[in-house]
């Protein structure tokens, strides 16, 4: 084991910044593209891309697409697809807006109503997929029509405005509290908490690795990793907190953050989460091992619709009204995010963080092109090409056995020393593979 860990150190230790395993390296490839795209647009737009106002826009413009991507990646890991999310979002949106307008339902209750609508729709679609066995593509294609039509029936194809309180979830920001510091205080506090959490997680991980008797990556690797992350977090915090007075980190961004943490945990660390991978990877094998694949499929489809209804409500809140066109082609944005984020069409592969990064690639691209004044027609063409190229590179790399650019570089180094390296057996960092699931945080 020690032979693998650091005969030469240097570059290969640096690689551990991104954690172990090939799937992390693939995610690193996407993360690298994201950073490259951000820097490119930062240069092309004379610094507008990473300005406070734009960053805040970016989060509130794409939070609901990213929320959809969270649910979609689980659906895709389980080997399905959901085409109905846009229509479900529009349906939940119009139900909630109408309930508040016609029955004067208080907005917190309206949000619960929206989530209930999402659960019911999800249970309906999950039932057809899991227990009748109709392919999800067909069930959700039907759903796409049914719930879009439902939206038009309830709203009379009209735009229904929503009250001010409700708009907080889509266009609200962390409020201004405390003394005037030149920044939004709550955003600063939030940033410091996240930075602190990153440091703590790393410290704990190293301690656990010691207790487990495995050899952690050298200290300097951890220091660089944590410093980089903390630097990014603080930079972002300063930008978010320094927006125009009255704006700061968007409420929808907080909802997104909580969901990302929650679902990352579910998919990586819970039995249910591992079952989703198992069913998507090999349904028969999973069933023979005692996984209740029907239940898994049902819950995954249901969960998607709940998240879709939440996304729909956030959009309605941001648009201050629910309209007949809400949610059009959202399913495609969410699916694109998931595949750019490294998921496999055949199921069994994909991560929540990867999909979020994939979604951010699309978001930054869209936003940057808009800042440059590129028309919506051309933006569509460019987004289409990016999707194709991103997935194409990924597929090609896999067929070549190269997980990513970095993997490619390090592989050359390694072949000199170890002609046949069995990466699946030899964990490159920390905990043994059996303890630690392959899809790693950060």
């Amino acid at each position, binding site marked *: 084991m020690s032979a693998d860990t650091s005969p030469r150190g240097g570059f290969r230790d640096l690689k551990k910044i991104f954690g172990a395993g090939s799937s992390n390296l693939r995610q690193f490839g996407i993360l690298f593209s994201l950073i490259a795209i951000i820097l490119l647009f930062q240069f092309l737009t004379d610094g507008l891309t990473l300005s406070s106002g734009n960053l805040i*826009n970016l989060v509130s*413009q794409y939070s609901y697409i990213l929320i959809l991507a969270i649910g979609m990646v689980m659906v895709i890991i389980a080997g399905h697809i959901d085409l109905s999310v846009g229509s479900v979002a529009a349906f939940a949106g119009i139900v909630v807006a109408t309930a508040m307008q016609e029955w004067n339902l208080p907005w917190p209750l309206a949000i619960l109503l929206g989530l209930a609508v999402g659960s019911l729709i999800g249970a309906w679609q999950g039932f057809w997929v899991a227990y009748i066995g109709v392919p999800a593509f067909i069930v959700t294609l039907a759903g796409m029509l049914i719930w879009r039509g439902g939206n038009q029936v309830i709203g009379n194809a009209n735009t229904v405005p929503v009250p001010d309180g409700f708009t907080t979830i889509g266009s609200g920001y962390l409020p201004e509290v405390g003394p005037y510091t030149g920044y939004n205080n709550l955003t600063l506090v939030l940033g410091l908490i996240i930075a602190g959490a990153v440091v703590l997680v790393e410290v704990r991980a*190293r301690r656990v690795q010691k207790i487990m008797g495995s050899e952690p990556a050298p200290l300097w690797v951890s220091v660089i990793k944590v*410093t980089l992350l903390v630097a990014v977090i*603080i930079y972002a915090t*300063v930008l978010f907190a320094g927006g125009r007075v009255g704006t700061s980190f968007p409420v929808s961004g907080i909802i997104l953050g909580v969901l990302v943490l929650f679902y990352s945990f579910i998919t990586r660390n819970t039995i249910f989460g591992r079952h989703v991978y198992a069913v998507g990877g090999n349904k028969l094998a999973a069933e023979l091992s005692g996984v209740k694949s029907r239940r898994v499929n049902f819950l995954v489809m249901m969960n998607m619709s709940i998240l879709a209804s939440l996304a729909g409500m956030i959009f309605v809140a941001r*648009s201050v009204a629910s*309209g007949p*066109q809400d949610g059009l082609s959202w399913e495609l944005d969410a699916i694109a995010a998931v595949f750019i984020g490294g998921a496999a069409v055949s199921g069994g592969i994909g991560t929540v963080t990867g999909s979020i990064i994939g979604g951010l690639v699309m978001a930054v691209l869209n936003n940057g092109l808009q800042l440059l004044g590129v028309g919506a027609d051309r933006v569509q063409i460019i987004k289409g090409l990016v999707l194709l190229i991103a997935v194409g590179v990924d597929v090609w790399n896999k067929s070549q056995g190269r997980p990513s650019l970095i993997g490619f570089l390090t592989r050359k180094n390694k072949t000199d020393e170890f002609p046949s390296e069995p990466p699946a057996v030899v964990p490159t960092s920390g905990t043994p593979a059996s303890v630690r699931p392959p899809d790693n945080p950060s």
Partner: protein
Amino acid sequence: MRKLLTTTAIAAVALMALSGCSTRTDTTSGGSSAAAGFAADSLIGVALPSKTSENWVLAGGLFEDGLKEAGFKGDVQYAGASTTVKDQQDQISAMVTKGAKVIIIGAADGGQLGTQVKAAHDAGAIVIAYDRLILNTEDVDYYVAYDNFKVGELQGQALLDGLAAKKPAGPYNIELFSGSSDDANAPVFFNGAMSVLQPKIDDGTLVVGSGQTDIKQTATAGWKAENAQSRMDSLLTSTYGDKTLDGVLSPNDTLARAIITSVKAAGKAIPVVTGQDSEAESVKSIMAGEQYSTINKDTRVLVAQAIDMAKVLQKGETPEVNDTKSYDNGKKIVPAFLLPPVIVTKDNAAEAYANDPKLSPLTK
């Protein structure tokens, strides 16, 4: 472990220091900050809906040329065809980020832009609603459009004139069509027309064969020709088996042609059909004696008026408005500058389009 913590902490503090003083701006001046004016080469944003009608395509070109000529930096954006609302929201946000001083918006859905318009206003930009009013927000400063109630009145009158020319005495069988219900203008057209038609319906001169006189029944979702055509198909089958249809109130040209297509397909005589927008195909149709009338709302004049407003605002003056009480968007009454529309039939087409390089050859 301590080493790790210390290093991180030092790095963090260094970054805090590096990021320097706050650049936070406070532009809570509120209201329109017109008094100050702005630089003559400022950015003027123009956000238009998708390129679904000739008028929007024409308007975009005119804005680009006009703003350049006036010395401004123009940023003219269309929304994508499938995701108009979201595209437009994002485009307006991008214009705010780029520091546009005036944002002229032809809304895809006037009810769904509140957040973006507020952000524009908070950043000190002046918002002008172009052709379609922006609803339920206090943050729209001006509205520039043709007088749409007047458009409706002219359509109603044209329908009566056309019917009278066709058959000296009533009763006449008519059907009513209105625009998309998510467009704030649709009811204005319809109510304008009904202000002329309703008295005639009440006294029995006009008979709405299907009985569908409510705006919800007559609405055409998305202003889509196919929707008008299929509604006309069903009306012909259900109501006009043996009756003759004398006239149809159509809110615009695209729908008028769809209605005529439907009538032709059913093998019926073409009724008197109104229209609006002076689309080239409809002008041809009018000259051929099929569609009865259209409305000329010269896009050139409307665009020029919007650009003039931007010029006046640039100097720090208040632009002229001629209606300060009609356009209530739900939160405030938006000061409006309304241009007068012109009704066009076969009789006055040559005269009405004399200055239009594209349409005047069609009237010869």
